[in-house]
C-alpha cells in the first residue's frame, strides 16, 4: 500500500527523502507548538504582544517576565525534553526488542521509578525534615528506575551476551514483584499520600522549574544526543542478532548503549513528570507508517513529534478545567488510545508478518 507512493528520485523503496522532509515539517510544528505553549496560560500574557513590546524596545513588566521566564519557559522546555525522551526511548526499545509494542516499561524502569516515588511519598514523611525536600520524590524515582534496569540487565546478561528474550520476560516478573512491594507500602499510606501517589502516577508538567530542569534536563539531552548513533545498529537488529553481526554491527555494544540511553531518558523523564504513558508507543508507530522503519530518521522524528505531542497534551490539560489542571497522563491516554486504535484498524496488514 505505502509502497505505491514511494517512487523516489532514483531508487524505489528508498524512503529516506520522506524521513528528511518529515523532519523539516516536524521541526516547524515543534516551533509553532512551543510558541503557542509559551503564550498559553491563565494570565492574559501572549507571545505576540511580548514580541511587539520587545521589538518596540519596551521593558517587560516584572510579573510578565516572571510568568514567561520562570514559569512557562521551564515548563515548555521540560515538555520538549520529556516528550522527546519518552518517544525516542520507545523507538529504541521497539528496535531492540524487534517488537512495535515494546516500551521502556519493559525494562523495569517505569516500575522501579514508581516504587521509588511511592517510597519517597509514603515513607518520606518519617525522614528528618532536613533531608526531605521537593527533590526527594524525583530523586527516588530516578534511583528506583536505574536500580530496576541494572538488576534486569544483570539477570539477562550471561558471558557478555544480553538475552533480549530473557530481559522481556524477567521484566514482567520484576514488574510484578516491584508492584507487590509498592502495594505493601501503599497499604500504609494515609489519604493525602494516596492522593499524591495517584496524581504522580498520572503525570504532570505542573511541577516544572528551572531547578528540576537543570538536574534532569542534561540526562535526557545526553540520551537524545547518543540516540542517532544507534540507528544503523537498530536497523541491522531488525534482521535478527546473528544477521546484524554478519553485516558488521557490534551487537552487544548497541544493546548496552540502547539500554543505558533508554534508562537514562526514561528515568529522568519519569522523575520530573511522573508516569506519562503512550507517547513512547504511538509516536514511533505513526512515524513508521508515514516514512518507514529506517531508524536514521525514525529516532530524530520521534523526538520532534514526541515533544510536540506532549506540549499539545499539556496545553489541553491546562485548558479543560482551567484554572485547575488535569494530569497530563489522562490527556495522552484519552487522545492516544482511540487514535492508536484507529491507526491499527486501518493498517491491519502492517502488523502481521
Amino acid at each position: 500500500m505505502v509502497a505505491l507512493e514511494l517512487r523516489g528520485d532514483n531508487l524505489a523503496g528508498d524512503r529516506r527523502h520522506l524521513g528528511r522532509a518529515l523532519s523539516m515539517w516536524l521541526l516547524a510544528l515543534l516551533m509553532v507548538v512551543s510558541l503557542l505553549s509559551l503564550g498559553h496560560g491563565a494570565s492574559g500574557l501572549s507571545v505576540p504582544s511580548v514580541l511587539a513590546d520587545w521589538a518596540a524596545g519596551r521593558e517587560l513588566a516584572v510579573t510578565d517576565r516572571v510568568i514567561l521566564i520562570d514559569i512557562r519557559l521551564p515548563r515548555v522546555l521540560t515538555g520538549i525534553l520529556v516528550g522527546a525522551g519518552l518517544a525516542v526511548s520507545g523507538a529504541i526499545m521497539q528496535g531492540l526488542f524487534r517488537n512495535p509494542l515494546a516500551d521502556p516499561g519493559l525494562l523495569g524502569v517505569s516500575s522501579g521509578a514508581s516504587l521509588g516515588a511511592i517510597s519517597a511519598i509514603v515513607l518520606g514523611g518519617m525522614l528528618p525534615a532536613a533531608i526531605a525536600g521537593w527533590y526527594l520524590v524525583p530523586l527516588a524515582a530516578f534511583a528506583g528506575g536505574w536500580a530496576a534496569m541494572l538488576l534486569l540487565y544483570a539477570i539477562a546478561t550471561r558471558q557478555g551476551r544480553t538475552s533480549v528474550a530473557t530481559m522481556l520476560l524477567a521484566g514482567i516478573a520484576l514488574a510484578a514483584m516491584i508492584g507487590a512491594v509498592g502495594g505493601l507500602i501503599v497499604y500504609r499510606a494515609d489519604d493525602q499520600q494516596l492522593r499524591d501517589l495517584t496524581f504522580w502516577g498520572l503525570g504532570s508538567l505542573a511541577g516544572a522549574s528551572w531547578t528540576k530542569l537543570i538536574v534532569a534536563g542534561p540526562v535526557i539531552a545526553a540520551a537524545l544526543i547518543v540516540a542517532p548513533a544507534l540507528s544503523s545498529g537498530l536497523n541491522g537488529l531488525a534482521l535478527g542478532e546473528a544477521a546484524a553481526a554478519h553485516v558488521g554491527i557490534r551487537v552487544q555494544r548497541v544493546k548496552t548503549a540502547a539500554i543505558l540511553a533508554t534508562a537514562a531518558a526514561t528515568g529522568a523523564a519519569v522523575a520530573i513528570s511522573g508516569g506519562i504513558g503512550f507517547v513512547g508507543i504511538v509516536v514511533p508507530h505513526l512515524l513508521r507508517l508515514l516514512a518507514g522503519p529506517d531508524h536514521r530518521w525514525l529516532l530524530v522524528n520521534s523526538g520532534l513529534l514526541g515533544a510536540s505531542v506532549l506540549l499539545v497534551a499539556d496545553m489541553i490539560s491546562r485548558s479543560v478545567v482551567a484554572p485547575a489542571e488535569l494530569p497530563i497522563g489522562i490527556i495522552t491516554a484519552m487522545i492516544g488510545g482511540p487514535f492508536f486504535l484507529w491507526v491499527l484498524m486501518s493498517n491491519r496488514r502492517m502488523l502481521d508478518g
Partner: protein
Amino acid sequence: MSLCARDLSLRLRRRLILNRVAMTAPPGALTAIIGPNASGKTTLLRALTGEIAPDHGQVALNGRDLAALSPGMLAAKRAVLPQHSVISFPFTASEIVRIGLTASAHPEARRNVLIRSALAAVDLPDFAGRLYQEMSGGEQQRVQLARALAQVWRPTGDDGPNWLLLDEPVSSLDIAHQLTVMRLARDYASRGGGVVAVMHDLNLTAMFADHVVLMRNGQVQGEGAPAEVLTDALLSKAYGCNLAVSRTPAEGIWLLPQMASV
C-alpha cells in the same frame, strides 16, 4: 587464501555438535556442505561465519584467525545468508539490501547502483519498492540473498577472495529460481570468490558444487570433488538408507534439474 576449519569441536547445551571437524573451502569454487538432518551442517556454517566460537580448534579466513577479526573487518570479507529471516518492521526490499552495506565505505551513488544490481542479480529487479512482509517466502529469501551479495559484491578484494556463506539458499525456491540462485553462486565462484553453501538437494549439489563436504554425526565423512564424495557407499552410510548414484529407475517418472534449460 581459503576458508578452513581446523580441528573444530563445539558443544551446544552439553551436546557435542561438531567433533574434530577439519575442512577447507578453496577460493574460486562452490563448496557444498551436505549430510542428513542434525549432522552438524548448519552449526559448521555458523562456526565458519564467526557467529559461534568453537570450544576447540579454529577457523581461518584467508589465512587469518576468525576470532582475531573485528565484526567490521569480517563484514568486508564475507556475507551470510541465514536459513530463516523474520524481519520485525515493514522495510522495503531496497532498505533491506542497504542494511547489507552498513559496514562499507561506498559513496551514496555507488550504494544505489549496488542495491539495484543485487536485486537484479536475484531476479527481483522491480521489487526495490516492495515491502518485505508482502512478499512470498521465496521472494524474501532472494531479497536476503541480494543483501548478502551487495555486502561482498566484488568476488575478490585487495587481500584475497571474498566469501558468500549460504545456509540452504534454495530451500524455499521453485526449480527455476533454484537454478537462478545456484548459477549466481557458481558465477561468483568462477570470478574468483569463495562460496560455501549448506545443501539439502543432492542433485543440485552434484550439478553445481566443485567441492563437497559430507557430514554425519558432527564429523566429516568425506571431502573432495563431487565424484569422490557422492558415491553409493558414502551417501548410503551417511544418510542411513541405500542410495544409488547416477542410475535411473526402471519405471515411474522423474525429473532432474540438470535437464532444465532457460
